[in-house]
């Protein structure tokens, strides 16, 4: 057996994993790095539950060859909160009932974060576009869209941070 070492930063911390040839990033994160927040949903690029940010941009970890993230920066929902403070997106999801079963939430949140990091004042259509690759079977999307709009408003307001966990 041969394993390939891959090192990257995960939520700001240096991380290294050994992967099998052909392993995808989702497996590397979950079984290698122990970050269980990204989920398997389809393995084919349809559902978006495995979405993570690579250098700030959303990617599907189940379709990303693990070795290709060598030296890059990966963010997941596990690293979303700032210290003991929830990220405004997380708080808005809680307040707005934007998660039911919770399975899509981790992917949905990082997709939303990628949007707000580059566009602090998105229109509703831009929010819809940003999460268009992330399926949700429970909510019907409206509460999620509302929550992202609410979080954007919070983040624009001075001192608008989430609550302590």
């Amino acid at each position, binding site marked *: 057996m041969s394993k390939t070492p891959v090192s990257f930063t995960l939520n700001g911390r240096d991380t290294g994993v050994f992967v099998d040839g052909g392993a995808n990033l989702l497996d590397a994160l979950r079984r290698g790095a*122990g970050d269980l*927040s990204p989920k398997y949903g389809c393995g084919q690029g349809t*559902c978006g539950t495995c979405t993570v940010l690579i250098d700030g941009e959303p990617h599907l970890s189940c379709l990303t060859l693990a070795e290709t993230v060598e030296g890059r920066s990966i963010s997941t929902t596990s690293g979303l909160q700032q210290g003991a403070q929830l990220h405004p997106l*997380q708080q808005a999801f809680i307040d707005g009932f934007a998660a039911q079963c*919770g*399975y899509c939430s981790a992917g949905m*949140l990082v997709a939303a974060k990628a949007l707000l990091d580059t566009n602090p004042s998105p229109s509703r259509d831009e929010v819809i576009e940003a999460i268009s690759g992330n399926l949700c*079977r429970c909510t019907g999307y409206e509460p999620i869209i509302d929550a992202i709009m609410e979080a954007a408003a919070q983040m624009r307001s001075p001192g608008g941070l989430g609550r302590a966990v």
Partner: protein
Amino acid sequence: MSSVELRKEFFADERPEGLNEIGQPKIRQDILGHVTGRSEFYDDHLYEGLLHMSIVRSTEHHARIRNIDVSQAETMPGVVRIVRAADVPVNLNTLLGMIGFGRDDEALLQEKRVAYKGEAILAVLAESELQARNACKAVRVDYEPLPHVLDVEEALKPEAPVVNDEYPNNTFDYHDLYDHQKLRFGDVNKAFAECDHVVEGEYSMSPIEQAPLETCGAIAVPETNDRYRCHTCSQGLFFSLGTTAKLLDMPSSRLHFIGGTVGGGFGGKVDSLNEPMAVLGSMLTGRPVKFTWDRAEEMQVGAPRGAEKWRIRDGVMNDGRIVAREFTGFFDSGAYTRLSSYAVIKGTAHLPGPYSIPNVSSNVYCVYTNRTPATAMRGFGITGVDFAIECHMDKVAEKVGMNPIELRMLNAYRDGDMKPHRRLAKNTALLECCQVAAEKGQWAIGSQYSAMSSLRDGGGEKAAIPPTIIDEEGRIGERKAGRVADAAPSRNGKLSTKPNSTVPILEATMAMGEEANVPLEIGRQREAVENMPVRPAATVSSITRPVPPSSQPTSSTPVPAPPIPTPAVVSPAASPVSVSAFARPLGVPSAAPTPSAPDTAAPRQPVAEPQPAPTASPSPPSPAGPGVRRPGSSPFVSGRRGR
């Protein structure tokens, strides 16, 4: 933010204000875990040495398996074990066996005859998922294709291939008597003859996949004390536990199921196929085993809401009153029963929709075809027929030239009305829903409709069960023998001269998981029934007994219970009589078993009608308290739960 609007002006006196929880917004208790990515789904558990299970599935709709060659697969890298049908201790089950309904008809692994594309044949356990998949590709299955049937009405024809050995007529057996579930209320044929219009329609629904974002799966791990831990996304944790215990022939005390966090279910996570396979794999290897479906499996073999087909015939008066409604319904169960048998019962209880129609009849079939077995999905048994009914209401409105909302309101049920399955309607709110819908949709309705209330003008004569026409068409096997041409309710029924039944025919299945109140070993009585010299007592679905219209029906005692008649003859040696598994005579205190089914009562028995064999009730309604075990009920399930 919320688009939910509470219309508190309706039924204000039925709902106290000032409650601490009800009516108040609540933060979900599990949502903090969801938004931080820390909620533990079944797959969010890491185990050293985890094995991966992958399945070899049928590529045929219907085939005999001549040979299976695993010689190459078992030597492939990473392969630890091949799991065969013979490894499953009790390789036959039916899901509702847990509540004593139906006969075992489905194997966990099927190596002799596959009956749908995607049916599981064997499993491979390997060190990695890819190795397990690669080994599955190397298994050679030699199929002898058999004729298959994919359409419900084709499946009912005498020449149709037999899909399911346990039900060779391609229909589930209802009450050990009929190949369909009957509902009879009043006299539809007389009403059809007297009405102004007959409006007919046929409506079909394709199967619908629940498509949860988390696919079905389970991880099993050997624990100490000879137990197995099982992380699962099952929607029915104890249902899955009981099913696993049965298939693996082990006491449930050896199973430690951990669940509760379900990544979307919508009904599709009750079939309990992953849990027994994962635990079996763990038993055979002594290692943690994960058996998860990929998305393609979820779509192909994950049991969907089944396809349905409904034909509706309405007898309508010029003023829009619907005076008769007849249903012929087909549920496509796929190759095995799963939950479709129950969907038929549940659907029947819903007929004719939220309307008071004085004459209703239905024949509904649970049909086996060579398609993926169907199971539960949100309101299953109801959703399909509701789609059909509401399409049909529009068709009726068009026929009589009425505003479709007013047509619905004119025919709406109201509190106190008798529904065809012998339950009094209560907490009805169709009128109020129509009023709000009309208002929101800016759809004009007449002032008399705006003034209607579900609380008024119900009950009275509408609380009565009308004299009802019954028939005995569609006995089990008759259709297969070519002796029944039409699937629709009989045109040749006759008025029962026996007393009207007040039996709520669907009593035991109103909430799935509730135990039946009468013998659960009904299947075992089948032979006795078939050997009876005369026809058994009429099935509860067609028993009638006149009930004096109640002037003031109440919801707690919908119909005054007649005194329990003394049976004319009680023979202690009588054969068991066929009594529906759903039968409990209304008004009979469940804790006070009666010696005889009320329907065999002598006093009103007509001379001309063939006498049922003098019988004693084979087993009287037993105490129905929570948690009470009954003969034949599952040793793994106790307690009650509503759904």
